[in-house]
């Protein structure tokens, strides 16, 4: 029987949902709106609209260089983290290896250690081994940060893999290397693509590790940070909006890819 109150919990939930969306989207919308403002400062009302800030950003050499640098670091750390993470996941599911729980715990540690602590300890570590700060150090930091996510994603997929697929490959004449590249890796594919895109986003987004490990060349977040310190301007809003749009697009595409692969 329906009664007057039976819908109350649902209504409350729906209200929370909309409130949450508003809370999530309002700041972003404001930021985007300001990037079209035809004035030198960030404040309401917007008044006249313009695309000038975008034109300016696209010609900003510093911005473009920072973009390129961020992408390069993301690519390198993603490649390293994916290789390492996949290997660790394979190790964890392999038969006849002891201490798999410990390997798993260690591999996951960087995901739960606070970014600040992890950044400082990395900094101390690289100076102990006399490694200069800069590109290599940043890539190392980002890789360590991203590995746990790859491990978890690869592991989930590996655990759902029928055990005898590899047996079948071996049976048909594949040695373990061929079996890995022709059967295990393609099976892991969707999870790895998802993991890789996650790594890219983590790396592009990272500030604190880069801050401690970086040299003089700024990555995108560092550049924006530096600019913000010089005062807010619609140009920063335009930059941030561009970054937001691109990363959101990449994220959604990743989701689409993994979803498609999963339903096959």
């Amino acid at each position, binding site marked *: 029987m329906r009664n007057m109150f039976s819908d109350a919990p649902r209504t409350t939930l729906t209200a929370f949902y909309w409130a949450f969306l508003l809370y999530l989207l309002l700041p972003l919308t404001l930021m985007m709106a300001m990037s079209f403002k035809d004035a030198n400062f960030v404040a309401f009302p917007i008044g006249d609209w313009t695309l000038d800030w975008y034109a300016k950003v696209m010609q900003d050499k510093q911005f473009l260089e920072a973009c390129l640098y961020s992408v390069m670091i993301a690519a390198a750390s993603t490649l390293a983290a994916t290789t390492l993470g996949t290997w660790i996941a394979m190790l964890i599911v392999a038969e006849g290896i002891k201490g798999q729980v410990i390997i798993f715990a260690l591999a996951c540690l960087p995901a739960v250690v606070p970014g600040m602590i992890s950044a400082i300890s990395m900094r101390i570590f690289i100076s102990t081994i006399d490694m200069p700060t800069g590109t290599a150090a940043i890539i190392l930091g980002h890789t360590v940060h991203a590995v746990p996510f790859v491990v978890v994603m690869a592991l989930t997929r590996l655990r759902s893999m*029928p055990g*005898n*697929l590899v*047996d*079948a*490959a*071996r*049976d*048909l*004449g*594949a*040695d373990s290397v*061929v079996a890995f590249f*022709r*059967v295990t890796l*393609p*099976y892991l*594919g969707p999870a790895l693509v998802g993991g890789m895109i996650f790594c890219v986003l983590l790396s592009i987004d990272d500030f604190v590790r880069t801050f401690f490990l970086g040299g003089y060349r700024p990555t995108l977040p560092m550049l924006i940070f530096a600019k913000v310190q010089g005062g807010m301007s619609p140009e920063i809003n335009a930059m941030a909006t561009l970054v937001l749009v691109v990363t959101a697009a990449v994220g959604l595409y990743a989701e689409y890819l993994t979803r498609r692969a999963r339903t*096959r």
Partner: protein
Amino acid sequence: MQPVFQFDNVTKSYGKHVAVENLNLSIEAGKFVTLLGPSGCGKSTSLRMLGGFETPNSGRILLGGKDVTRVPPNKRNVNIVFQDYALFPHMTIAKNIAFGLELKGFDNQHIHRRVNELLELVQLQDYAKRLPSELSGGQRQRVALMRALAPDPEVLLLDEPLSALDAKLRQQMQIELKSIQEKTGKTFMFVTHDQEEALTMSDTIVVMNKGRIEQMGDPNTLYGRPGSVFVANFIGETNLLRSTVVGTEGDTAALSWNGVTIKAAPGGLAPKAGDNLYVVLRPEAIHCSADEPATGNRIKGKVRQRVFKGNHTSLSVEVGDGALLNALVHPSDVAQLSGDDVWVGWKPETTTVIPDRHAHN
């Protein structure tokens, strides 16, 4: 003739648990061999040892006369059809079948021809470009079979490949499997716990029990002349009459069972009076009639239960001191058995006699 494969005193244990014990088995090329036995008796372990996925603790495995005991699976010329098919989900049907051929280094033209030939053999030409997930269970089964046959193995190993199919499809696949085996002339080693499946397809059945071979022979022999109580019970329906020898006369023994005296031919057992024996009496060997029959054994009994099974009726007849005999009655004979009083009769030579191993101790 040299056997195509051979287990030479093979033992495999997991920790303290012995999965396969002193297995000696030698099979001729071109045969359809079935390992039959209840779950956990060591069938899969034996098959995986031949496939190279398990290493025996002792003994040797020979393939085409060569010792392969320690040769890894990818270097052995045998292929497995797995219970859940294990088709590569990201490869098309054609790619799945080509996998083993590619690894053997055949050129593309040869691979293409062979794949098409095999797909035609099971009428799946139109499915070459599909993914395994787009096929039905029966079709996947055929693809798995063709993938394993493609590299032309010396022995094809099949581990309960039909158990995931429904009853109707399973019967159809049994016939298809047998015909493919005959067409290709390959040696098939088939593993199942389903005795009917084994009887339908095999040239040779190896009955296993607790890691050991219980009996081995062609389906007729195993059904008609089971060598142990285990085999008699495991294969087909049976009446097992535990009886005591009263006396012997020539090659016939008089036995006391359940308060009545029956005759049986103990073969080479040479029993003495007082020995205990089992008589294996198949339900279809029993003849039921209203009038006293002329068969060597005949007992008067009462029908306790009739179960109509379509092509026959199954009767439960109480005889002697209350034992029940299970008999099959042909539809044309049922009509004359309207009353509960009935004669059961059987020829002594249709029964098999098994010694009671636990009698002496």
